[in-house]
């Protein structure tokens, strides 16, 4: 039973991370109809910013709590800034281009960012400090759940709720929904579409940055390539749940996390990806729009 629980919570942790990153994919898709393939790279950059800031502050001898808070905020801030810039540089000039062009531009952006970090940080794995201290109350359960995992799960839950409220109840959230339904009409009602799209990129990227620093602190090492794998998995989660849908991204992330965790635990860790992508194929055969996705007919 403990083993099952461990796998369950491990899957929940993974799933929360996938969900955090998948939100960025799904928000951008919802507003722009674009798959932002550079999103995984933003996550990787968030992790590196976390590493640099926490290393710097540790040398200065700051208390651990201050380091965690500031490193996390800086990671989110930088990730947001990167997201904003990526959109301005790579997507906004192509707003009216054929659909394929921004997609190619996204892939180019992704390769560029990987190589930029490769040059700046080398290809070696860098050790990442454990930012989250061991909680004493978790000591008796340490064979089931680590304190980092608990923090990841809590962070994901809080973020998801906050995002849901943002989309549902605020002015900017309403503008996002309006744009995703009819961009031209939103413009004709005086919504500054460029600003809302920028905001979407900033929010989605900041979440990826948060995911980056959380995972890095959990896994303990990072390099320039982690964004690619995480990006692919999170994209899978977004498609699984129904791309464009925020609850879908969360659900897709969790399902993917659990599938991987149980497959690793009960079958073999060699087949982790086989199960993950096998599930994707299986679900898309029966629900091509994803679990919570809406089947949309093309407008004439």
């Amino acid at each position, binding site marked *: 039973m403990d083993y099952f629980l461990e796998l369950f919570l491990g899957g929940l942790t993974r799933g929360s991370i996938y969900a955090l990153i998948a939100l960025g994919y799904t928000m951008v898709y919802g507003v722009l109809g674009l798959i932002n393939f550079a999103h995984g790279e933003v996550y990787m950059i968030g992790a590196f910013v976390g590493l640099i800031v926490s290393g710097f502050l540790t040398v200065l001898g700051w208390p651990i709590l201050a380091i965690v808070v500031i490193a996390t905020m800086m990671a989110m801030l930088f990730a947001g800034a990167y997201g904003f810039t990526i959109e301005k540089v790579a997507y906004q000039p192509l707003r009216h281009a054929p659909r394929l062009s921004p997609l190619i531009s996204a892939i180019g952006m992704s390769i560029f960012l990987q190589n930029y970090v490769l040059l700046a940080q080398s290809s070696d794995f860098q050790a990442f400090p454990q930012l989250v201290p061991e909680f004493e109350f978790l000591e008796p359960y340490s064979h089931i759940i680590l304190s980092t995992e608990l923090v990841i799960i809590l962070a994901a839950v809080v973020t998801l709720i906050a995002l849901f409220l943002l989309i549902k109840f605020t*002015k900017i959230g309403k503008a996002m929904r309006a744009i995703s339904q009819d961009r031209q009409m939103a413009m004709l*009602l005086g919504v500054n579409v460029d600003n809302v799209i920028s905001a979407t990129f900033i929010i989605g990227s900041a979440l990826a940055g948060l995911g980056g620093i959380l995972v890095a602190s959990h896994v303990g090492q990072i390099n320039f390539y982690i964004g690619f794998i995480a990006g692919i998995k999170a994209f899978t989660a977004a498609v699984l749940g129904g791309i464009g849908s925020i609850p879908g991204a969360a659900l897709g992330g969790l399902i993917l996390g659990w599938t991987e965790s149980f497959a690793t635990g009960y079958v073999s860790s060699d087949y982790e990806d086989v199960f993950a992508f096998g599930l994707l194929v299986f679900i898309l055969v029966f629900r091509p729009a994803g679990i919570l996705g809406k089947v949309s007919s093309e407008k004439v």
Partner: protein
Amino acid sequence: MQTILDVKQLTMDFGGLRAIDHVDLDIKQGEIVALIGPNGAGKTTFFNCITGIYKPTGGDVFIAPPDEKPKRINGKKPNQITVAGLARTFQNIRLFANMTVLENVMIGQHCRTHTGILGSIFKGKGVRAEERRVIDYSHMLLKKVGLDQYAHYLAKNLPYANQRRLEIARALATDPFLLLLDEPAAGMNPQETLELDQFITQIREEENVSILLIEHDMRLVMSISDRIFVVDYGKKIAQGTPAEIQNNENVIKAYLGEDIDDA
């Protein structure tokens, strides 16, 4: 009376096709003006040029909000033109189908409020007061168009005629001085058209807006318009009061075709 919209020699080419050919049009404050013409005459293209969806190939569009100097608006983005005070509806209804009736109207207020992203997230006192105001104002508009009891319905669940009313309410929410209506009576039965006639006259009085409409229902056009502009094949062929237009030879030719007996 002050001229609030002055279109001069407007021209729009699509490749080799001239959809609008040197058209002049003007609207004075408080007027209801109709733009009519056979199918494909370029009426909707004309609207699209004025509201910033298309960038006109030639000519100028000047607007002058009441008590302001005229300014040139061609080449501006649709959201900037909306901020300047022009609002429109579409021939085919374009509501945000999956948002509530109230939310649809609230979106119209978007450009008239000042809350930024951070404000939305942290919701200070001022932001909440502003939101309260937007909601109250939206309810007030919905009452005026008779839709307040449906405020929390999804827009797609309203009956057709009410969706049209909601579109007009949403356009009014942007606080325009000129309202552009693209075939507001399309798909309505005679009773609904009659109500629309009263509704348009009523919003002109109460909201202090001028109206430019495209319409094919001639009874509606003749009964509510102060002046009428007629276009055919992208060219303006007539303008004048309803009585003048009804007896204008060019217009009759455009609609009924030429008499070939005399030829």
